[in-house]
C-alpha cells in the first residue's frame, strides 16, 4: 500500500512538473498562416489580390514565398482556387490550424483525466456495491431487514448521497467528453483506414517539406513535438496515478474486511 501511495505521489509530481513546463511553453502560440511557394511571386500576388481583398488579407513576402496570416480552415482552399484560376502552379503550405492544434495539446490531459476519473468512480462504485451486498447478505442471515436497515441506515444513506454526487459528476464529465471538439491539422486524417503509416509520412512531408520548410514551419514542428510529448507525459502520469490510487483503495478495502 505504501509503495502504491509513493507511486501516486511521484506521478502527481511528474504531472505537475510537466503541466507547468507545458503552460510556460504555450504562453506564446504560433500564428495561423498559409505559405505560398511559387516561382513567379509578382504573378501570384496579382492572382491573390481579389481573394485577399475579399477576405481582408494582406499577403506579405518572406524570402521566396508569400505569407498570408489567417486562421480560417478555408484560407488554403481559397488560395489554391485563386492560383488555379490564374493557371499558376505552386505549393500551398497550410498552417491555419497551428494555434488551435498547439493550444489543444495543453488541454489533452483534461479529456484523459476525465476518462481516468470516470474509471476511478466506476471502480469505487463497484467496490462499495460489492461490499454492501456481502454485508447485507451476511447480516440478513441473522437479522430481520428492518433491524438491518436500522443498524446500517446512516452508512447506507451517506453512501447513497455520495453516489448521487458521483453520478452527477459522471454525467457532466460524459457530456463534456461528448461535446468537446477535437482539432487536427488539415489533411492529417486519411479518407480510408486510420492505420496507414504511409499516409502520415506523406502528410508530414507535405506539411513540412524537406528543404522548403520556413523558419516558422520548423519552429512550429518543434513546438508541436514538444507540446505533444509533454501531453503524453501528463497523460502517462495521470494513468499511473489513477492506477496507483485504485490499488490503494482496493488494498484499504481488503484491510477493512480482514
Amino acid at each position, binding site marked *: 500500500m505504501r509503495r502504491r501511495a509513493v507511486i501516486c505521489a511521484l506521478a502527481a509530481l511528474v504531472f505537475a512538473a510537466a503541466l507547468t513546463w507545458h503552460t510556460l511553453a504555450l504562453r506564446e502560440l504560433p500564428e495561423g498562416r498559409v505559405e505560398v511557394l511559387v516561382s513567379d511571386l509578382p504573378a501570384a500576388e496579382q492572382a491573390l489580390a*481579389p481573394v485577399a481583398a*475579399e*477576405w*481582408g488579407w494582406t499577403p506579405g513576402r518572406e524570402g521566396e514565398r508569400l505569407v498570408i496570416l489567417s486562421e480560417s*480552415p*478555408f484560407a488554403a*482552399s*481559397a488560395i489554391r*482556387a*485563386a492560383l488555379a*484560376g490564374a493557371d499558376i502552379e505552386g505549393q500551398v503550405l497550410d498552417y491555419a490550424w497551428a494555434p488551435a492544434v498547439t493550444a489543444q495539446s495543453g488541454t489533452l490531459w483534461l479529456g484523459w483525466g476525465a*476518462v481516468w476519473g470516470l*474509471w476511478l468512480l*466506476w471502480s469505487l462504485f*463497484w467496490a462499495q456495491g460489492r461490499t454492501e451486498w456481502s454485508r447485507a447478505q451476511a447480516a440478513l442471515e441473522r437479522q430481520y431487514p428492518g433491524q438491518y436497515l436500522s443498524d446500517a441506515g446512516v452508512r447506507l444513506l451517506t453512501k447513497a448521497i455520495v453516489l448521487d454526487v458521483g453520478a452527477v459528476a459522471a454525467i457532466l464529465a460524459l457530456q463534456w*467528453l*461528448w461535446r468537446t*471538439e*477535437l482539432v*487536427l491539422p*488539415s489533411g492529417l*486524417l486519411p*479518407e480510408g483506414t*486510420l492505420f496507414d503509416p504511409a499516409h502520415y509520412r506523406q502528410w508530414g512531408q507535405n506539411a513540412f517539406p524537406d528543404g522548403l520548410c520556413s523558419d516558422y514551419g520548423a519552429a512550429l514542428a518543434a513546438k508541436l513535438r514538444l507540446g505533444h510529448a509533454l501531453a503524453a507525459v501528463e497523460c502517462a502520469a495521470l494513468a499511473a496515478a489513477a492506477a496507483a490510487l485504485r490499488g490503494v483503495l482496493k488494498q484499504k478495502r481488503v484491510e477493512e474486511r480482514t
Partner: protein
Amino acid sequence: MNRTAAKAIAVFLLLMLFFTFASHHLDALRTPQVLCVTPKPGVVAGERYSAVVPSEAVHFDRDPYVYVVEDTLSYFYPVAARRALVRVIASGDGLTAVDGLYREARVVRYADRALLGGTIPVRAWEVEAP
C-alpha cells in the same frame, strides 16, 4: 464464476462506452466542414444574370454540378450536401452564372475535405463566405 462474468460484463460495457466516444469524435473529424454562398444576381461578362456563384463552387464531371447544403431529419447528421446538376450560362472574372438552383440554396464554395459522392453529411461553417 458469477464474479468473473459480472466483471467481464462491466469491462465490456466500459469498452463499448469508450469506443462509442472514440467513433463519435472520429466521425465528427471526418465530416467535411463547408463554407457556403447563396446565389445572387450579378453581372458576368457584361450580362446580368439572376443566379451567380463563384466559379470554384461549380464542379465538372461530364455535366456541371454544385453541392447544395440542406437540413436533414437525421439526428446524427443534421446537415448534408447534395450534388445538384446545374446549367452554366456564362462565366468570367471568377464568377459563373448558373441555372437550376432555387433562390435560397446554400451552395458549397469551399470544403476542408474532399466532397465525394451524391449526398454527404457536412458541417456548415456559421459564417457565409465573403
